[in-house]
């Protein structure tokens, strides 16, 4: 968790440097690597949660309120039902969202944004492939 925290700061720094030099699309491997860092924040959050929750046992409030005493009187059925509802609803919404994302990606930026307008108006699509040479040229 701590390691990931430092990694995020460093990763942000590297990206800030690359972006300010205009090196956004220059390194294919680095772009792929960046895609695979997406789950890391969740891993960091979950491990932080584990540390906090395991670390404070057997207390909810250290020295004042023990965990067994603070737990609510919910039945196992209540918990099974609520967890199942959440899993089902969020899975359904995830499927819908992935469908929409794939659809948007497939449509691409051109159809949506560049139909009739001047192409230079759309900044990101109009970024030159290699901005450094572009700058020298002009």
């Amino acid at each position, binding site marked *: 968790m701590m390691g990931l925290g430092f990694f995020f700061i460093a990763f942000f720094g590297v990206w800030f440097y690359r972006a300010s030099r205009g090196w956004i699309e220059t390194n294919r491997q680095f772009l792929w690597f960046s895609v695979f860092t997406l789950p890391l924040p969740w891993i960091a959050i979950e491990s932080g949660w584990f540390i906090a929750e395991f670390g404070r046992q057997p207390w909810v409030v250290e020295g004042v309120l023990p965990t067994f005493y603070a737990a609510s009187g919910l039945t196992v059925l209540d918990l099974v039902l*609520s967890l199942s*509802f959440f899993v089902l609803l969020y899975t359904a919404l995830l499927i*819908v969202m992935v469908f929409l994302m794939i659809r948007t990606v497939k449509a691409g930026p051109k159809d949506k944004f560049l139909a009739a307008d001047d192409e230079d108006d759309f900044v990101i699509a109009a970024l030159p492939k290699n901005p450094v040479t572009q700058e020298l040229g002009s």
Partner: protein
Amino acid sequence: MSSIPLDYQTLRLIWWLLLGVLLIGFAIMGGRDLGVGALLPFAARTDDERRILLNLVGPTWEGNQVWLILGGGAIFAAFPPLYAVSFSGFYLAMLVILLALILRPVGFKFRGKVEDLRWRAVWDWSLFVGGVVPSLIMGVAVGNVLLGAPFHLDDTMRIFYTGNFLGLLMPFALLAGLVSVGMIVVQGASVIAGRTEGAMAERARTYGVLAALVTAALFALAGFWLGFLPGHVVTSVIDPNSPINPLSKTVELVTGGWLNNYRLYPWMLSAPIIAFAGLAVAAIALRGRARTLALLGSSTAIFGIISTAGLSLFPFFLPSATQPNSGLTLWDASSSHLTLFIMLLMTLLFLPIIILYTGFVFRVMRGTVSTDSLSKNPNAY
């Protein structure tokens, strides 16, 4: 604790009032969006009309929903025992409200993404569910509070809730749920009639007038029924400055006891009178096409209806059906003196700010929404 300028009793009463303000605030503000959602499949027939309704509440509904979170937060901070008993006890009911509310943001955001009528119908109906179900269950919850919840506390204040979800669906509670749906529909109809033109506004007026009349009838029926239900009356002497201990009092069940307050303090009858007057004004204004007046009447009705429930229960928040002495009142289920005072300072600081910026947003977003205004706005839903 002599350094706190307001005494405990006063602070407890102020927080009881503030909780009412927040819940009424949610019902009036969030009720606009819940009501529009409830009327979405009926008042709006074509895709264009439905888009108009989404854009009517789209820019403001998220802000309105924060009143609900504020209300829940206020219960947590000002009346922790009430929070503990109600949120654990009504767990599955709260869950159903939450799941229905989750359907609203996705309904708003996903609906316009695909130009397919079946796709759009799915999200229209999820917005309908997201409007009706929370209104219904919150009303059912208030009905159950008046019936008393099946819980008791042991001598170390541990909570034992012995009911279940289906047990909440009692006839009187369902009646309260219908009153709640009715007043929310009047509110939604007033918003639609107030800010759209043409056939849809006319349909909204018809539904609004109908809902106002039905709500008035059901509200009257609920009041009449309440006279025959066992009400909880504290028979021991109440010390409003006492420490937090719900078990220190004795409570008796008296038939019609929930109407005692109106006998003791006749001014409290103004709450139900305001409720009926508000519904009447809303119905007349909707018929007479007075746009602002309809919304004003319907908001007043919501204020009156929720105040009636609160004043009938006073000083109770959550009476216990199974062990009446465990019932929670504002005098014995609050936070500490210091907590209530600090939170009052925070509220006095931030509530005006919230009201100011909310007012600003509503000012910016005022005016009618039509097909023309949608085609001019590239960010429309």
